[in-house]
């Protein structure tokens, strides 16, 4: 699935003052590609990635997913559920749910599988990341790396065509970091459109394209 940004503009208003974070972003993200977005802190990387995820509203412009427009909470939610996997630095797991329940959340909206099939499928995905012993653990009972692995399994569970990640390795040690990058690389090889925001210079080795966000503009180097 491709993402086409056309003249995306975003300003924040704080204490009556307007601040332009993104001005006229135009870019086409393709399938089969691993993109990295870099830029200074406060340059608007998170803003951009959340606009692409349909979570944040923007002032003007258009986003096309496979040349199609998605409007409204219901359509964008469905798009996120079926076609976009999201990862954040802070994992964003529900603390009251076990690891497997967290992963089951997006899968439950899928009506093509029975509950038993869903559970077996999730268990298999856990064992791929050597997490089979931890499925009944609550997030508090997992290390940071393990929590991010749960978040990664959740992001990929519906086999999304787009993966968006905002500093997914910000809190991880080297081993976990490498594992996340390798899996995302693998996903890109499998035809996905992967967009990762990161400061980490090591990610450049995995990426197909490195983009910079500066002064509200996005450009390739």
């Amino acid at each position, binding site marked *: 699935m491709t993402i086409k940004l056309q003249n995306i503009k975003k300003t924040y208003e704080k204490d009556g003052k307007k601040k332009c974070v993104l001005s006229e972003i135009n870019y086409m993200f393709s399938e089969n590609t691993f993109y990295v977005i870099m830029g200074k802190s406060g340059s608007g990387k998170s803003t951009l990635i959340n606009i692409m995820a349909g*979570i944040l509203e923007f002032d003007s412009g258009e986003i096309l997913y496979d040349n199609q427009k998605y409007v409204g909470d219901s359509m964008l939610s*469905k798009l996120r559920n079926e076609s976009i996997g999201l990862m954040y630095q802070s994992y964003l797991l529900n603390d009251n749910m076990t690891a497997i329940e967290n992963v089951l959340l997006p899968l439950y*909206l899928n009506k093509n599988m029975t509950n038993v099939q869903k559970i077996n499928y999730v268990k298999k995905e856990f064992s791929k990341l050597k997490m089979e012993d931890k499925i*009944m653990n609550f997030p508090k009972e997992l290390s940071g790396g393990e929590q991010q692995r749960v978040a990664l399994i959740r992001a990929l569970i519906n086999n999304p065509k787009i993966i968006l990640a905002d500093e997914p390795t910000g809190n991880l040690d080297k081993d976990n970091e490498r594992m996340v990058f390798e899996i995302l690389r693998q996903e890109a090889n499998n035809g996905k459109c992967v967009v990762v925001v990161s400061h980490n210079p090591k990610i450049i080795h995995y990426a197909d394209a490195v983009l910079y966000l500066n002064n509200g503009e996005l450009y390739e180097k």
Partner: protein
Amino acid sequence: MKSNLNSIISKNIFKKKTDIIVMLFLIILQITLLVGISYFGSIQKFWNNYSNNSYDFNLALVTAKDENVAESLYHELKNNSHIKDVFYYDEFISFGVFTDYVKDNINGEVELFGTVQNTKKIIIGEDISEPYTMICPTNFLPDSLIYSGTYDVKNIVNLTDKLGEKISINYGGKHPINLKLVGIFDGSYDFSNPNACYVSHETLKKLNDQYQPDLQFNKKNIYILLDDINNANLLMPNDNIINIRPIKTLKKEVGHNAIGITGIVSLILSVLLFILIYALLCRRIKNEYKNIGILSLVGYSKKFIKKLYYREFIFVLLISLVLSNFIAYYILENFVSWFLFNSPLLSLIDVSLNPIAIIITGIVSVIILRMSIKKSLNLIDNMNIMELIYD
């Protein structure tokens, strides 16, 4: 392992404590409505029943123009098809002390009314027929002060054992006589003073001739029993009649403040419930903010998330309605013995759960829940997912 969406989500979104608080409030409101409206409905039915059936309220006093026309007027009235009984004062009312029933708190005094057959609904025994026979009400309580506080359903005298026996009475408080109790009539069918027993006009006339020979009464005053008090108008205009006046009028307003009190209490409770649900739900949504945001991230629409909250309260609503109906039914079953036991008038009411009360209670509950939930769920519409991602 729990393995369906609802159980997993409900485990995280539902908060049992707040649900129970809301349910308790809801039950109090629902019981107020159910009991209040049912009681009001029963009172209305009670008064309508009386206006249709009642003996006392269909009695009227006709005053003739002068003594010369009184006798011909008497015969004219006797022949009127709307008039069931015509009599003079000495055939109408007297009193006696039922000596067997004088107790510490009951003075035994009973009013004796003269009447004809078929004016009362006899439920045990038979109607008055022979001289010196008497019928008394099911709610019989011989005391002259029943309306000023001595009445209590517990003191009602059961006369079934005395049926067919002679009862000793001090007629007019002075003259020992006996009257045979032949029947007991339904006091609730047609409102009767608990201390009113009925004999024939002939009996009353004989007793008065014997014991109160100097009783003065004006032949110009003729008492009539109408089939319906409203038909009194049909007797007028009549040159021989000065006026016609009902002996007793129905004070239908007794008990009618029930609906006003129910309305005010329900309104206050409704407002409190609205504020309570709004406050509790807003607090809960704020506490659940992160988890609601996570649901949104993985693809649940806000509409879907809001439905989960509604569905939770549909549960609360259904459970509360079932409980309230049971409790209200129980309260209404015991309403008379708990609240109306010392009213000779209202203790005869048949209070029962009214289907209209159930419908109104359901509608009011749904409206309040819907309004308060909708208002608090605005928080979800206005939530900023970005804030929870990066806080």
